[in-house]
């Protein structure tokens, strides 16, 4: 596993850096979209996989951040990095609020509360005058990074998205492997015991909510800058469903599993676009197949297979 990371990671980074120079091979804007979803799914998994909290309202964070960023860019004329930061702060605050309310219940009831709150956010954005309702907020200028780098150039933008996604994923990885992450996992495994050890469980949960929401917001902000548009699709509950699908498909017991899920779903939607409504059915079939055959998700199953094959090595690394 360690070997895979040591060789694979630099290769992956090199390939990602090369992409904008060979647009014939893969469409850079599509890849930017994929990166946004990768970040979104991994951020979501911070709650689902690592804290064991099922949120059904993550679209609210993703979408509201997109709207706030769009508003800051278009109507307030702020520079791009400030606009993105504003979006992230807004969604993190929203996440803390959601968390504070939702963690009073558990399991399905918690999920329902997050769904209800997300619908509230959805309808607020539907009615708010600055969002353009069903038209979406458009056109949003991409602006200049630090007032210097012109983001209308797709290559510049690509590297911004790459750096933000990379940074976001690094942060998620740090959080998961920090003492804070361990406590989250302890809460997931046995909440009363964690409480009896003296941890203020609620505070950890709310913090996890805020972190997950903030990073989801970063993904939403980036998507809005890439497409110069924030729309109701981003806050609709379908989006919350999509991110759960991506996470479960990729594997929720790993840090980067959801990334694989996000890539698979986005690629299916992109390359089989011509099939129209059939894509949804296809994605559904893939999901059913995945749940029946490899329950740990794509990456989960893969690392399980490697662990079974080389048990000694894994123990040494662990």
């Amino acid at each position, binding site marked *: 596993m360690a070997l895979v990371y040591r060789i694979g990671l630099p290769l992956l980074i090199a390939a990602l850096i090369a992409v904008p120079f060979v647009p014939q091979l893969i469409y850079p804007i599509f890849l930017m979209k994929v990166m946004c979803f990768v970040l979104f799914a991994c951020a979501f998994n911070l709650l689902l996989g690592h804290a064991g909290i099922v949120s059904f309202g993550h679209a609210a964070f993703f979408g509201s951040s997109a709207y706030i960023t769009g508003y800051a860019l278009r109507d307030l004329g702020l520079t791009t990095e400030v606009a993105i930061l504003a979006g992230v702060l807004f969604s993190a605050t929203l996440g803390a609020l959601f968390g504070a309310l939702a963690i009073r219940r558990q399991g399905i009831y918690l999920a329902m509360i997050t769904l209800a709150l997300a619908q509230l956010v959805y309808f607020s954005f539907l009615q708010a005058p600055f969002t353009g309702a069903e*038209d979406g907020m458009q056109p949003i200028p991409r602006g200049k990074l630090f007032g210097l780098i012109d983001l209308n150039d797709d290559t510049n933008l690509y590297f911004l998205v790459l750096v933000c996604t990379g940074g976001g994923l690094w942060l998620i990885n740090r959080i998961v492997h920090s003492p804070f992450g361990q406590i989250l996992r302890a809460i997931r495994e046995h909440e009363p015991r964690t409480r009896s050890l003296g941890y203020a469980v609620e505070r950890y949960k709310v913090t996890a909510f805020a972190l997950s929401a903030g990073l989801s917001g970063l993904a939403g902000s980036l998507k809005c800058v890439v497409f*110069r548009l924030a729309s109701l*699709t981003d806050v609709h509950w379908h989006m919350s469903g999509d991110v759960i699908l991506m996470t479960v498909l990729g594997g929720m017991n790993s840090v980067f599993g959801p990334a694989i899920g996000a890539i698979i779903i986005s690629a299916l939607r992109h390359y089989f676009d011509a099939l129209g409504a059939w894509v949804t059915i296809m994605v559904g079939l893939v999901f059913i197949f995945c749940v029946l055959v490899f329950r740990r998700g794509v990456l989960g199953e893969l690392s399980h297979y490697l662990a079974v094959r080389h048990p000694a090595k894994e123990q040494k690394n662990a």
Partner: protein
Amino acid sequence: MKTSLRLTMTAASLLALGATAANAQISNDVVRIGVLADMSGIYNDLSGKGAVEAVKMAAEDVGGTVLGKKIDVIFADHLNKPDVGAAKAREWFDTGAVDMINDLANSGVARAVAAVAKEKKRHIIVNGASNMGITNELCSPYAIHYAYDAYSLAHGTGKAVVAAGGKSWFFLTVDFAFGHGLEQQVSDVVRGAQGRVLGAARHPLGTTDFSSYVLQAQASKAEIIGIASTGADAVNAIKAAAEFGATKNQKLAALLLWIEDVHSLGLQTAQGLMLTNAWYWDQNDETRKFAKRFYDRVGKMPNMAQAADYSSTVFYLNAVKEAGTDDPDKVSAKMREMTVSDMFTKNGKVRVDGRFMHDMYLWQVKTPAESKAPWDYLKPVSTIPAEQAFQPLSESKCDLVKK
């Protein structure tokens, strides 16, 4: 020996030069037209497969090639979502070698795509949407608004209803760019004639249950219920109004009704409604000829947007031929010089803001007794000359208009 070699080399390089020059005329060696339509949603009937077929017919009628290069027609479904439409258009322009996007039913999508076209400097021709933004704040040398717009609807149906005595209005408006724009245009006409607008109920796209909205309209006691929606929404609203008995004391004004809507409402419910359309299949021999060909391929009569899809595609391809290139700027200049005389309109011309100027017509839905054959639905009321049907340039917010 040496001289002959040099000669050959010169000749070869000249040939190569000639070849590149010929290539430069048509980018990517293909003139590709993308039809971005609603293929699965509530506007499927108005655009959808019919729009794709109309554009394909146009490509075939031009001969399948222009300047020796193949004409390729592709299509995609925008799902009535602006983000999906804009992303698709961006991809088509960036990597799909698409030279022109046609149809664009749904105003929200059309607005989003207009912004992308302006950024990428490629052509779009809007036939399915009515939003005034296309020829105002979003105007560019690359966008043409061809078939109709909200102004023409308001100054057709709206004006006719006000003239017939409908002074107080309540709107049932679909809650996005199209509905808002239409409501605003008609409100202007109503107020301009000393009428009153009592209010509006906004419903989401694709609403099936109109009961609460119709009750609001009834409670307003307005003489006219203006239906600022179209397609399945308008059909459902009109049906609900009839079921709730609103039509006893109040009159309906459907502000954008298509021949397909009349078809699905049935003449019993739709009879007497006024509608503004740019084109009707049973206008003259030319339109009937086109309609018959279309009917044989699609299985229904074409509507004004589909006829406009055909007409505007032929127009675009002819402009490419005249300009000798598919370079967007040169084609744009050519399209603003040429006039269009075909089965869609006579002496139509593109204005500087991208508005295609042609006459509009006010129609009335026939009674079941008047209708002699299937799809025989409309009778002409009046012709609205182009200058009255469309927004005068002096009111335009387009920055291409010199003031």
